[in-house]
């Protein structure tokens, strides 16, 4: 193993970058300072992204163990340490995060006007914490980052959000905190049983536990992850948070934070408690199917574009949980692929809404219409993401949804059939979104004076569109990245 602490550097880059900006980027002129802050943040985030690509380059896809492992003592009396490492699953999530961060910074370039410095610093902190979650191999570290993510998110929504921001920020914070404290109790219980917090060790040890106990532990972890996913009926914080968050906040929320729940299932619930997971399979299926159909129906009648996409996110995450709990290769691969694809696509959709909101100062569908004629370039890109969200073959959304559904069919054909209804509904509400906003008559005078997207927006949306198309047509390299880890987990279920 190499001597360079790849992951620690990856984690520290945004963290120290944030501190650097706090203390050293100063200027008497506020305009100038803000520009400096934005530039520095952008470069830090781009450099973090490049660094994550270097890690990817050095990553060995044939090895099934954790790579780039680093271990330091932290709480020696309790056998808890700073213990990091990645496998293919977490690495793909890390790259998703580091890719979305520069995009978020660009998206807030002109839309954030007050307290720019704090905003950028909070975003870098957020990135560091998220990376922290994905690299943790110690349960306590995982938990710490899992909770710490809430603080920057609370402030981002609370300070820069819409009219109802404070309510939403509270809801987000308390909902997720309530879920994650049960995680804390379960974690401490496991710790008192085995005296270690190392995830790889616990993955072996926890098999010795009694089913009656693991059922409770599974539920405790479930409470925490289900809120984050979010699964029905714990999803109500999400539409509020999305609608009120600034564009970049929505992007990171949909793009990465929603993946934390599913990632928790993959990293903890499924490998730790295979028996209990099987026991609760139907329970998860039922909740997922309800989530898919119910939230799709809600999405059908939304007038607020952000709310519509937020509800569609809940539905799409339903496919992820179905895929995960089908316990077969197709389902599992599909679920992880769907996580990545959804991160890109819904992030891009929120960016699109942001583009419109910045120009029209509304997110309401009945104030739009006929935008295609004024913004042709934008209309094309928006179409790509709409179709990807629907799951049109050739785009990334199709691969994930198809594989997850296939897994669902194999496990339980009723689930497959019911979830397929969600695909149809998905097409219905996404096409409605596109039609009402882009086609039809111009209902709003402001639309007449619209400018098409500028070069930065083209670049940002273009990059995402290209990735969506490329991995949609040729998903093999992405699937290859985590294939061996998926097989490793699934071995417990055969």
């Amino acid at each position, binding site marked *: 193993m190499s001597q360079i602490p790849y992951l620690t550097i990856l984690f520290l880059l945004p963290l120290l970058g944030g501190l650097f900006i706090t203390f050293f980027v100063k200027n008497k002129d506020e305009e100038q300072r803000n520009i400096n802050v934005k530039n520095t943040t952008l470069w830090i985030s781009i450099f973090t992204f490049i660094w994550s690509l270097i890690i990817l380059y050095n990553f060995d896809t044939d090895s099934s163990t954790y790579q780039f492992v680093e271990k330091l003592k932290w*709480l*020696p009396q309790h056998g808890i340490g700073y213990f990091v490492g990645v496998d293919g699953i977490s690495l793909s999530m890390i790259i998703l995060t580091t890719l979305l961060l520069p995009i978020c910074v660009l998206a807030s370039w002109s839309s954030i006007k007050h307290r720019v410095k704090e905003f950028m610093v909070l975003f870098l902190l957020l990135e560091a914490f998220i990376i922290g979650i994905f690299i943790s191999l110690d349960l306590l570290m995982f938990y710490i980052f899992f909770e710490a993510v809430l603080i920057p998110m609370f402030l981002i929504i609370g300070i820069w959000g819409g009219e109802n921001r404070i309510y939403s920020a509270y809801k987000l914070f308390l909902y997720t905190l309530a879920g994650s404290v049960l995680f804390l*109790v379960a974690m401490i219980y496991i710790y008192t049983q085995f005296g270690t917090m190392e995830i790889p060790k616990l993955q072996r040890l926890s098999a010795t536990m009694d089913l009656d106990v693991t059922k409770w532990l599974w539920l405790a972890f479930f409470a925490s992850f289900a809120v984050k996913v979010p699964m029905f009926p714990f999803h109500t914080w999400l539409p509020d948070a999305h609608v009120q968050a600034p564009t970049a906040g929505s992007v990171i929320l949909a793009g990465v934070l929603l993946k934390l729940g599913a990632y928790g299932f993959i990293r903890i619930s499924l490998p730790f408690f295979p028996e209990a997971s099987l026991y609760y399979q139907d329970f998860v299926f039922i909740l997922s199917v309800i989530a898919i159909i119910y939230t799709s129906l809600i999405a059908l009648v939304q007038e607020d574009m952000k709310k519509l996409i937020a509800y569609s996110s809940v539905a799409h995450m339903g496919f992820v949980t179905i895929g995960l709990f089908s316990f077969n290769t197709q389902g599992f691969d599909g679920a992880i692929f769907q996580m990545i694809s959804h991160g890109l696509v819904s992030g891009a959709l929120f960016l699109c809404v942001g583009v419109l909101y910045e120009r029209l100062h509304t997110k309401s569908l009945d104030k739009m219409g006929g935008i295609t004629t004024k913004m042709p370039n934008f209309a094309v890109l928006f179409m790509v993401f709409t179709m990807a969200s629907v799951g049109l073959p050739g785009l990334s959304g199709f691969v994930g949804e198809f594989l997850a559904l296939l897994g669902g069919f194999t496990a339980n054909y009723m689930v497959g059939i019911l979830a397929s209804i969600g695909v149809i509904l998905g097409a219905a509400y996404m096409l409605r979104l596109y039609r009402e906003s882009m086609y039809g008559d111009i209902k709003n005078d402001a639309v007449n004076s619209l400018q098409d997207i500028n070069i930065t927006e083209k670049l940002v949306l273009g990059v995402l569109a290209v990735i969506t198309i490329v991995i949609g047509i040729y998903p093999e390299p992405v699937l290859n990245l985590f294939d061996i880890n998926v097989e490793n987990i699934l071995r417990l279920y055969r």
Partner: protein
Amino acid sequence: MTNFIPINLLFVLPEIILSIAGMALLAGGVFFNKLAKSTPAITIIILLAIFAFLFTVNINDQTIFNGLAKSSNYTNFIKLILVLAAAIVLIFTNNYFNERLINIGYEYYILIIYSLVGMFLMVSANSLITLYMGIELQSLSLYVLAGINKKSAKSSEASLKYFILGAVASCIFLFGASYVYGYTGSFDYIDIKNFVGKNYESITQVPSPLILGAVLVIAALFFKVSAAPFHMWTPDVYEGVKTPVTAYFSVLPKLAGVVALINMLNGTFLYVKPMWQQVVYFAAVASMFIGAFGAITQINFKRLLAYSSIGHIGYALVGIIAGGGESITSTVVYLIIYMFTSLAVFGCIMAVQNKDIDNAVEDEQIANYAGLSQVNPALAFMVAALLLSLAGIPFMAGFFAKFYVFTQAIDAGYIILAILGVIASVISAYYYLKIIKTMYFDEPKHAIQVEMSRLYKVVLYVLVAANLLLFIFVSDLYGYIEKLV
């Protein structure tokens, strides 16, 4: 036995110095005006000297004065923490009164000194009589401290309320102690423990009046640390007295009281553990939830912190319940982290003054702090970080404080208690967030002004930095205390 006096005096040197200094300052201040004026500085110097003494001295565990008290590195460590906290409070106090041009009178400092002696006695008590003396000395000083602001009706009310309820609690203590004495024939912790262990094979055989006595003694201590259901005095007293006094009330007596409680539960009443575990269980749950729900509707920062301190005592009791060395360690770590976090919060809120004459809101109303993040970002950040620490959110030491006590509780099989504890901590996160919201999301409404002397600033920064660093180095603190215990 002939030469025990000179040796024993060394063990109580801090107490002796404090008592003599207190008397000298009191008497001297009457005659020499200059001495009275420099009392604050002298007091702080004496406290720091005692801190240095306790820091260097290293002794073996032993009982002194024929078993009336005991002395060990552990008790010395607790005393060291107490002295340090008292010195910090005094630094904050000076700034507070100077900025507001209030002449508090030099008696204030002498009362602090005497209450400190009382707490030292409580910590090293090895007999119910010593403990009672300590409690009384501490409480009497605190009653007067509460009423030090003579012209304020609220302060006098608080003082009187505190005095009457405190006197009743002391009576309860004596009543309980007399039962214990009646059955065991001794006040000595070890004698009582051995008597119970020898004469009764199981807990069912222990006569109920003896248990009643133990419960009464414990209840009196609960009153002193403001654990529910004996918490009623706390919000009113906290609100009524001057803020520096509140800061003093909210940290020092808590540590002294809980340490005395731990000594008694794990020493004297070791053999009736299943009995006191029920009592502590109830008090812990009640404190956590009363603390959590009580604070939600508060609009005064001090009242809110009063409820918050009730809640925190609940968490400390969660740590006590398991019994044994690690549980003591976790509780002491919890209290130390809580103490210094809470002190720093008080330091922050004391620095803020409302200078808006038209819109005058009473000092220490939460509304006063609206938009603080725009007026003084550094201070707002510190308050936010400290409050998150109190809420037990990661990246602050408070998280590990909670983590350790819950680990102890779960290890001893109290899973339900731990679940109730984390639920209460989610509820309490709400009101800490409320303050952060006021500081960060609301626009400034009042002309607030932040005035801090340089020393004040340094102390405050060190406290906050320590809180952040302790997150990383918490195991060192834990290991150090574990060795002492």
